[in-house]
């Protein structure tokens, strides 16, 4: 039992977890907190796409009144997805692989020597390639939109085309968040942050990127097979 000035072996966080020393939380603790934050942050993203998906399924089954015949008809005209989307999928998966390589590379550095500052170990080759492929994917999605429009499918043409634009567009906006995070990781390198700090940024971005890749595959399957 100590007074205000009393100091016991340092402890913190997690309701009784042992800590390893005073000062900033160690690398493992910071990584754990960042990953937990990401996991929590992904929950509303999942909810967003779950509700879009449920709207997609519901809207697909709804009849509409034809004012000319006064009869209920189906207005769901499936959109033929551009083949380019498959190529884009490949690009995104490849970028995810590069992202994972970047994560593993920097993590091994961080666990062996977390205090090291930017130097030779801070090469950003895998990250750069991920970033380039991410931008290629986004450009590919934009091109696919243009192809859809060229085929006469605009946002409001049919309910199915509305959902194609909605789902691909919302996914693209979220992926842009990942691209932004990659830029942050690059800036962290330029600012000579410690390997540990950069590793955490890259780690969290990597998991987010993998999630985005998985989400894209889900969206593609939904649009292709649930129509």
């Amino acid at each position, binding site marked *: 039992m100590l*007074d205000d000035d009393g100091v016991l072996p*340092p402890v913190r966080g997690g309701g*009784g977890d042992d800590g390893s020393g005073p000062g900033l939380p160690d690398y493992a603790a910071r990584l754990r907190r960042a990953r937990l934050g990401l996991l*929590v942050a992904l929950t*509303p993203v999942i909810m967003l796409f779950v509700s879009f998906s449920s709207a997609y399924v519901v809207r697909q089954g709804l009849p*509409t009144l034809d004012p000319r015949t006064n009869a209920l008809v189906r207005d769901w005209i499936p959109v033929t997805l551009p083949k380019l989307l498959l190529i884009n999928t490949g690009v995104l998966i490849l970028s995810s692989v590069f992202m994972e390589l970047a994560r593993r590379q920097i993590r091994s550095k961080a666990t062996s020597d977390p205090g090291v500052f930017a130097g030779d170990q801070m090469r950003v080759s895998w990250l750069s390639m991920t970033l380039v492929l991410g931008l290629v994917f986004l450009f590919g999605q934009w091109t696919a939109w243009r192809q859809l429009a060229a085929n006469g499918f605009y946002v409001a043409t049919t309910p199915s085309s509305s959902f194609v634009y909605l789902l691909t567009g919302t996914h693209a906006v979220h992926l842009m968040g990942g691209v932004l995070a990659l830029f942050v990781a690059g800036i962290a390198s330029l600012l000579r942050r410690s390997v540990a700090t950069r590793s955490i940024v890259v780690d969290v971005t990597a998991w987010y990127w993998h999630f985005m890749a998985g989400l894209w595959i889900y969206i593609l399957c939904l649009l292709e097979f649930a129509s």
Partner: protein
Amino acid sequence: MATHEFAAQESHAHGAPQGFIRKWVFSLDHKVIGLQYYFLALAAVFVGMFLSLLMRIHLIWPTLPLPILGDIKPETYLTLVTMHGTIMVFFVLTTAPQGGFGNYFLPIQIGAPDMAFPVLNMLSFWTTFLGFIVMIAAFFVAGGAPLHGWTGYAPLSALQSSGPGEGLGADLWIISIAIFCIGALMGALNFITTTLDMRAKGMTMMRMPLTVWAWFVTAILGLLAFGVLLSAGILLLMDRNLGTSFFVPLVTINGQLTGHKGGSPLLWQHLFWFFGHPEVYIAILPAMGMASQLLSVFSRKPIFGYKAMVYAILGIGFLGFMVWGHHMFMSGMSPYTAFAFSIMTMGIGVPSAIKTFNWLGTLMRGRIRFTSPMLFAIGFVSLFVTGGISGPFLAQPVLDIQLHDTYFVPAHFHLIMGVASIFGIFAATYYWFPKMFGRMMSESLARWHFWFSFIGTYAIFMPMHYLGMAGMPRRYSQMTEVAYLHDLIPLQKFITYAAFITIAGQLIFLVNLFWSMFKGKKASDNPWEATTLEWITATPPPHDNFGGHTPVVHNGPYEYNVPGAPRDYVMQTDPEIEPAH
């Protein structure tokens, strides 16, 4: 100051801010952010209250021109209804208990130096603030604010030509709510991560104060619900501005086809209420936590059935997602579906009753101190029971169809979701004001405020039940011309007069709040002789909450009247005791 056990603290994520802008505007300190949320909600509640006052005046004097607005048309009245509901639900009932008190006290009550992600926390507040500005801006654009109600039912809300205010004003309304959702999600992320990852040593989940449990579960509800509302808002914006038909069926306005077809208004209702019902608990769970805390402190007894209270919070949170359909009994849903939603809705009565009986159990044989926070906590329980008791009525589809569009429903939800939650906010304000500002609030003014509010609330909302049962429809701007409602006009007048007096009573609170900040009696570190961690630190708390240390927790949060203890309360940081319960 009593002796407390501390451990060395992890370095604070950010240093104490220097300068006004960094300290009070773009602050990373959770306490300042909590105050920012609180004062935002305070501004919002007076806007919302002013709108309700205009409605009440118009209802009994329909030909009287109102200040600023002039003559009130029916659509103007609907605008008042819409904006009152939206501002109150989002920017008051969601903002103050969670964003305000949760931000300020959750980290301190678990022994953390700050939230897990301080920058995100700051962004969360400013996003919410932006949402409020956008919402208020809807009043000032061409056509004015929308008239589709806070529930924004399509197709009324989905067509720009469906009425005045449904143009740019409605777009701003949707954008404001979308911005609010993003801010709320950022806040929820912080609450959950902080609670799970930053508790002090010894602060196990089952030693957390019930306030923390309430904020934690509320954050989970927000995390699951606001994403759905955001999705609905995006679809609605697309329907309105891009010509899609998610929610709009084949519909004509003034004999002209709108160009939409095939959409489902019920789809909007499902998505909205999947958010909307948990929102009720987002508003009231923090108040439940505060009531639990205060009833124990001021009864000088451990909370009755701590574990049961925790499981009841979890149960309410879980069941809250299963019952959205009871808002849609009028939509023509299958009777079997309605039956299922009805059963689930009544199921929520079980954890709610557990909480109520445990509150009463806590009060029983307690050495009650009737302080102003305690009065409001008891008032909360009273309103929760009174408002809750009409819930099982509305949970019956056959009764709901009769009562749904009458004053019975506003009476129900204002008592249980609105005023009960506001009483929780008042209780928390009077309780934590000394810690936040270092001074005590005037107890005599607080008591006047309580009796005005308590009696006034019942005077306003109890008669509304009778109006509803007598068939008086809600959302109608003028009822003086309707013959079968003539006999009810005196009751409407009574409600309006009661509203005048109750709102005047809130000025007492306002005066007390600001006067006490500067002139109130200096507060000690633990004026209520409470046990939780915010009372072991200085008043007001230092930037890092515990002056460079991290508390070590040995006891539960409600150890009062422990046999053999030197005083009638045992702090959470005191040496471990044998629990008396």
